[in-house]
């Protein structure tokens, strides 16, 4: 489950393919109530939709 570094392997990535960077997790939300209402415990996944574009 290694993440192939995109920067220095750019030529090896075929076109027309989607790539999702590997989630790196360090600290989760302390306030569990807020995390529950937000819908995730991972700050890096907290991406509220703001009507035009994600933050």
């Amino acid at each position, binding site marked *: *489950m290694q993440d192939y570094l995109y920067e220095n392997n750019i030529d090896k990535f075929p076109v027309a393919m989607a790539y999702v960077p590997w*989630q790196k*997790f360090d600290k*989760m939300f302390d306030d569990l*109530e807020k995390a529950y209402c937000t819908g995730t*415990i*991972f700050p890096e996944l907290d991406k509220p939709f703001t009507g035009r574009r994600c933050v």
Partner: protein
Amino acid sequence: MGSNKEQLLRDIGIVDFVLTELTLYLDTHPFDRNAMEYFNHYNRIKHQMEKEFSMKYFPLNTGMAESNKEWRWGMAPLPWEGVCG
């Protein structure tokens, strides 16, 4: 964490949500020690809360249903009881 029944039940649900999130993450990151520590921590907390709830009110699962005078699992209210009035 809350004390009365509704609050304790809600808190158990929130900790259960945290464990579900961590489980999903660990399924794809099986060697992430940091995440495992978080999981172990909240897993113990959830068990304590469930035990407390079971002693104070009624068992939430049959694993908590040790009984002597009456069969506590069977006597527990059904989840929908008293909800639709």
